[in-house]
Structures are given as C-alpha cells and as structure tokens.
C-alpha cells in the first residue's frame, strides 16, 4: 500500500476529495467514503472515521449542506450536497493543488 501522507496534507486533500465526490451527486457519509476508496484504488482506506470531522468542518464553512433522508435501504441517513460556494472553493482548491504538484515536480526534477 502507498505510504499515507502527513495529517495536515491529508486533511486538505480529504476536503478536496469530499467536495469532488459530491459534485457528482448528493451522498451520505458512508457513500462518500466508499466512493473515495474506489477512486483512489484503496489508498485512503485507513481511518474512515476521519471523514466525519471533515464533513462537519466543510458544513461549518458553508461549502456543503446536509439533510436527513431515507437511504436506499429505508434507513434514516444524513445526506450531504455541495453548495455553490463549495463549487467555487473546489475550483480554487483544484487550481492550488495543481500548482503545488507542478512546483514539487519542478524541484524534484532540477535537484
């Protein structure tokens, strides 16, 4: 398994991944964690629990919003949905991330 990055970076990327996931469709927490697991091919599997503080944080910032609905098996679950502000933030974060990756790559190539 690939090495897990430090918690700060992880937190930032986790927010990013959650926002990205929610652009596709509203989802409950477990659904989001499954999706992230799928997409990252197993990298972000440890500590599923860390998702929920992140969701709380994102909701406080107003980038996502939540409501209680019936889930696919008729149980009550909390569904999250991205907000317009969230979409904008996502665009900004993606841009930042791309720039960061380029910069690191540049450093690694020249040194």
């Amino acid at each position, binding site marked *: 398994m690939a090495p897990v990055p430090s918690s700060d970076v992880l937190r930032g990327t986790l927010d990013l991944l959650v926002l990205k996931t929610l652009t596709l469709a509203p989802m*409950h*927490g*477990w659904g989001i*964690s499954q999706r992230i697991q799928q997409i990252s091919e197993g990298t972000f*599997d*440890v*500590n*599923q*629990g*860390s998702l*929920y*503080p992140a969701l*709380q*944080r994102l*909701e*406080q*910032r*107003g*980038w*996502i*919003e939540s409501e*209680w609905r019936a*889930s696919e098996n008729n*149980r*009550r*679950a*909390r569904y999250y949905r991205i*907000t317009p*502000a969230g979409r904008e933030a996502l665009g900004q974060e993606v841009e930042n991330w791309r720039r960061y990756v380029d910069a690191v790559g540049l450093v690694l190539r020249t040194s």
Partner: protein
Amino acid sequence: MAIPRVTLFLRALFRRSRVEREMDEELRFHLEMEAARHRAAGMGPAEAMRRARLAFGGLEQVREEMRDGRGTRWLHDLAWDLGYSLRSLWRRIGFTGTAVACLGIAIGLNAGVFGILDALLWRDLPGMEGRSRIVSLYLSTRDEGGPPLPTAFTPGEYEVVRRHARAFSDVATFGGTMATVTTGTQPRPMRVVATSDNYFRALGTRLALGRPLAPADDAPAAGPVAVIGHALWMERFGGRADALGRAVWINRQPFTVVGVAPPGFHGASPAEATLPPSERPQLWVPLAHAAALGFPGRAADEPYLQLAGRLAPGISRRAANDEAARIVPRLRAAERPGRQAVTLRAMPLGERSGESSLLNALVVMSVPLIVLVIACGNLGVLLLAQSAARRQELAVRTAVGATHGRILRQFIAESVLVAVLAGVLGLVLSLWAVDLARVFAIDLPVRPGLSAPVLLFTLALVAATTLVFGLVPAHRLARAEPFAALRAGGSGDTLRGSRLQSALVVGQITLSSALLLTCALFIRSTGKGREVALGFDRGHLLVVSFDPAAAGGDSSAARALRRTALERLRALSGVAAAGTADFRPLASLPEERFAAAGAGGRSGTVKVVGVDTAFFRAAGVPLRAGRRRGDAELADAGAGVVVGERLAAAAWPGASPMGRTLRLGPDGAPRTVTVAGAAGDLVTDLETEPPALLYRLEPAEAMPFIYLRTRGAPGALEVPVRRTLAALAPDVPVEAWTGEALLRGALGPWQRMAFGTGIFGAIALVLAGAGIYAVMSYLVTRRTREIGVRIALGAQRGAIARMVVGRALRLTALGIACGVPVGIAIAVLLRHLLLGLGPLDPVAFAASSAVLLAAGAAAALGPATRAASVDPMEALRAE
C-alpha cells in the same frame, strides 16, 4: 441554502442532546453499512462488525474530535467549571461565607472611601457640567512688603484677569457671605453669593426655571434680581412657576426672583461646597448689588472676590497656568500701592491651592487598602487550610483523568466566584459611604454613588485579589502528589503550608496593631485635650453672638440695640457678669507686628483681639498686675491695651509692662498704645502653645460677641438668653455656645480621627481574629490524632486547651512585636497632631497590645475547647 455557521453554533449550544443523538445515529449508520458490506461478502455478523470498527478507527476519538470541532467546547467546560465550583463552595459554606464576608467588607470599605474621594474630587457636581474643565483661580500677594500670602481678588484684579485670560472661555467672579433673608415673614440667616454676569455660563449650569443673571443685570442702575436655590424654591415657593417675579428681601432690600438653580447646585467655591447643607449658598445676585450684602462694592479696591473659570476647548490646565503666570505683571500694574501680586494659579475645582489632591487621596486610600491586605491575608490562610482538606478530592480527580490544567482552571473559577461575590457585597456595602463620610464630618458636595470610576476600581480590586489569592493556592493544590494523599494519614507538604499560614496571621496582627495604636493615640489625645487649660473659665461661660449690624441698617441704631441687650442680659438672674469681645474662643485670630518702646524693648508679632473692660471678669480671665480691682480703673485708660503674659515677657523681659507703650501695625501706618493692665493668656489652637496676645480695649456696644459668666451651669441659661434677645430684636439671628461646647468643637477633629481609626482598627481586629481562629482550627484538625494519643496517655484536658491558647498568644505577641516599629513610625509622623503626648506614649502602646492579646486569646478559645474535648477513641479510629 447552507446553514450559517452561527446557527450551527447556537444549535450545538442549545440543542446539545439532539446534536449528539444525530451524530451517534450518523456514525452508527456508517458502521452498520460497512458491516453489511462485509456480511454480503460472506463474513459472520460479529466478524463483520469487528472489521467495520477497525476500518473506522477510534469511535470515541472521532466523537471527541467532532465535539471539539463544534466550537462550543470551551463554553460547556466553563459552564461545568462554574457549576462544579458553585456546588463545591456550597458544600464548604463555612469557608465560603467567611471568605466572602471578609473580602466583601474590605472591598466595601475601599469602594466606599474611593467613592468619597470620587465625590470630593472628580465627580460632576450637581448643576455643573464638565467638572474637569472648570478651574478655581488662586492669587497670592505681598502686602506691605510681607511674605506672599494667599488672598482674595479685588474687583480691579478680576477685570485684568478677565480681559487678558484667553485660555479661558469664561472667567467669572463671586463672593459669598451670610445675610439675613426674608421670603415670607420669618427672617433667616442664609448664604448669599454676589456673582459676575457670566457665572452660570462658566459653570455650565442649566437653570431649573427662569433665566440666569445677564450682563444687563450687572449695571448699577438695573433693578436688583436674584437666582434662588432649588431647595429654597421648594420650601418657600412650593416649587411653583409663579415664584418668578416674586420678591425676596436680602438685608431688608427687595430682590426680584428671575431664575431657579438646578437641584443640588451650590456654586463654585470649594469651601462653600463642603459646608453642611443648611449653610450652603441659596441665593445668587449680580455683583452690582454686592453692597447690599455688606461687600465693599465694585469700584472699591478691597480684596473679597473668588475666581473660577472654564478652560477654552482644547486648552490644558498647564497651558492655562502658563498664561496665568504671564498675567501677573499686568495685575501688578493695576494694583494699589503696597499690594503686589506674586503668583496666579489655576487648580481643578474642589482642590485647594498648595495641596496635592493626589497625594492626599493616596494617603486617605492607604488605610482601607491596609484593611484589604489584612482581609486578603485571611483569605490566603483559609485557602491554605482548605488545601489539606481537599487533597483527597484532588487525588480522586487526578486518578480519574483530570489534567493539571483542568484542575487549575476550576480552582481559578472558584476564586473568581468568591471574588465576584465579595465584590458585589462590597459594592452594596459601599452605598453606605455617605454615612462613612458623616462619621468623619466630611460634607460632600455630591452624593457618592456607583459611578464608573468606583465600579472600575472595585473591578480592579476583585481582579487583583483573584489573581493573588486564587492562583497561588490553586497552583500548589494542583501540583500536589495525588497518591500520597490517598495513602492513609499522608501529611506531605503541610508543614510548609502551616508556616505560611502563621506568617500571614502574624502579618495581619502587625497591621492591626499599627491601626489600633493610631486609634489609641487619638483617643488619648482627645482625653488630654479636655484637660488643657484654656485660659478662661469654661465651666461657667456662655458666649452669645448677637450682631444687629449684619442685618444691614444704621450702625448707631445697632449700637444702641447692643447696649440694651447687654443691660437686659446682665439683669438675668443666672448671670454673674457680662462683657463683650470681637472674637469667639478657640477661633483663629488676626496678627500684627509690634515693637516695644523703651530700653530693652523687643519686637515681634502678636495676635490682637478687641474686648471691653468687663470682658475679663465675664470670661474668667485673670487680670493680673497693674491697678486691678474694678472695671472703672480700666475704663479711663482711653486708648489703652491689656497685654497677655507671654507678650509682656516677650516685649519687656523681666520688667513690669504697666504704663509702657507699644507701636503696632504696618510700618506705613503705626499706632501707639499704652499698656493699662496685664492679663492671662488664651489658648487659640489646641495644638500649639498660647500665642502672644494683645487685648485692645473697645467700647462694649461695638462688638458682636457677648460673654456671660453664669452662676450655675451655662447650658441652662441659653433659653432665657434667647428669649430676652428675641423679645428685644426678633429679626436678628442669635447663636450661643457654652464653654464646654466650644472645647468639644475644637476637639472635633481628634474625636473623629479616633472614631474613624477605631472603626478601621476594629474591622482589622475582627479579620485578624478570624485569621487566628482559622489557623488554630486547622491546627487542631490536623493534629487530632496526636491530641487523642496525648489524652489517652493521661494528659490533662486543661493543659491541651492551654497549649492551643498559648500558641495563639505567641503568634499574637510576635505580631505585636513586629508592629511596634511600624507603630512608632506612624506616631512620629503624626506627632504634630498629638495633644499633650509624646509619640512613644506607653499607655497607648500598652492598651492596644492588651486589646490584641485579648482578641487573640478569645479567637483561640473555640479551637482550644474543641481540642480539649477530643475523644481519644474517635481520634485514633478515624483517619
């Protein structure tokens, strides 16, 4: 639409249980979905859940992280801390009550005294706006080449200042005096002030009714108008608007009422503002009519005016003072010869020239602050005593997982609660500050209240006591070894704790002893003051003030009136002799220079009084030397004087003064007088020796004070005297004093100081006693086992009790011993105020020490009794 952050926060705060439930439901949902996924892959239910939990990570940690993330954590913690502290304090209600009471009383005293200072110095006076912008102007001049002395202003000097002082937006002048005022039928003496036209404007006064005095009123030809005080308006005109236009008679001249001052307003004179309310100014008239009040009038060159000014916007008092210094040469140019202005100074309203109000304020505040320190000492003692009792509680909390920081925070919360409760109690107590002022006979210009400075000051005190006496024990407690306490009978660092306690108590007693010593010195001074020989026979003297000339009118009529009054009073059955004088005993007297003629004659200064020939017999002043016997001898002395003993000894040492001459008065205008007799001296001032005194012989009807020698007690004669004078001249105010009353009045300051320091000393004593009680009580509790053992082994219960009391007395004695140098220092500082005592008065020292020792023993009685009644079986069984 996204829910705003504030809403989430509030929901987390007020719907806490619901938020928690939702969180649990959400997390449980996740786990079950994950477990279902594993079950679908073929795992058993138990295994599936275990896998799910593993993949999830620490459930409780996630919960905690989410709780922290809500942002309400600190609030909940604070609420819990406060709740726990309240319950904890309620459980230990004895400690809490004592601590709050001690601290509350001390804070109350401080807030009260501060409130009094605030009212005297900084608070806006009623009816005046912007006290900090109003200043009093003080002038000192050199008259006839003498030293520079403070003086009133002449009208000419006022005009100069008014014209040239640009640092002020207004410079007003005023002069107050007593006059006879009639509003209905009854004449009454009242204080009336003549003012310039801009007086009310300078003070920023808005009248309750009508208009203020205007420039038009100040013209000599203008009709006489007056502004009346609010109290006078309510009393005589019923507070009705038709008071405007009515007339009041001042010294038998009519003045029309044009305005009413706002309630509580009493003018810009610092001296008048602190008079008792009944003597404060009640009428204001234009300066043009000052002559009606007996003032010299506007054109004259006599000094009788005071000045007050409002600083122009943006000008500081220092800038104003600089400008005032530049005005002095202009003043000199305008003054009459022989008078020369020296300094002109602007002081904040309410402060006298030459006194630093800040220094005085600090001195006054130091006494209640000492009491506060004593109270804090108590608090420290109590808290330290608590620390041992609570070590079990602490140990349990630490063992269960409370962090050092958390415990510290909760202890600080306790200290804050105690300090805040004490602060509230203190503020409530400070509402009686007015009564405290009355004890010290301080008349306040405005009622002290919970103004911003007082509240801020109290808050600062509360914060300071919290910091000092909350942090220290809290830190020590939180650091204590938890398991040592859980083990039986652990007494780890209590030895250091009890030494600190003892040190605190000794400190308290030291301070108390200093206060009590000061009180004892003043009490002794008052006692000694009563024994001072005053020079006159005070047991048989009644002094009556009867001054027909003050009501205005013809002076020869006044003289006739006085003559008749004197005859009628002489005829009263209780009167043995009657004489007159122009002064009242124990009052301050005017001074003049003298030069004695003849060989060996000296010169110097002398105090001068005017008396008639019958004075000496009436007042009981021994008439020595010369051709004594009978007033007839003195009557034909003409322009003669009687010299006091000291004067005789100073002017003609070793020789008889009879028949010699003296030159009196300033070099420019001397008078020569002949000595016709020698008499005893009079004490004018309790603190100093009788001065060199000269009695000028004057006609009896020229002087306002009548001295009656009574056959029996002088007090009994007052009613007949008043009746006689009222029958003769009903509209002339009469005042009477017995000799004893005069002495009591002069001793007033000492009595008040004794009473005041006594109150503070008593409070300090009670606090120190409480400290001793706490220390002894704690000692007994800690050593209960040891006491039980001793009793079981045969020790007498009486001996145990004596041991406790003996320990308390040793502490007290140590405190007294430390207090001796402090007491001596205070006594030496105050030695000028002590009457007939040296600073090392042994009686005062012995008395204050005895009181302290008695208090210490009394405080230890409770714990001593408890120690003596320890049941050895119980003590040895319990831990």
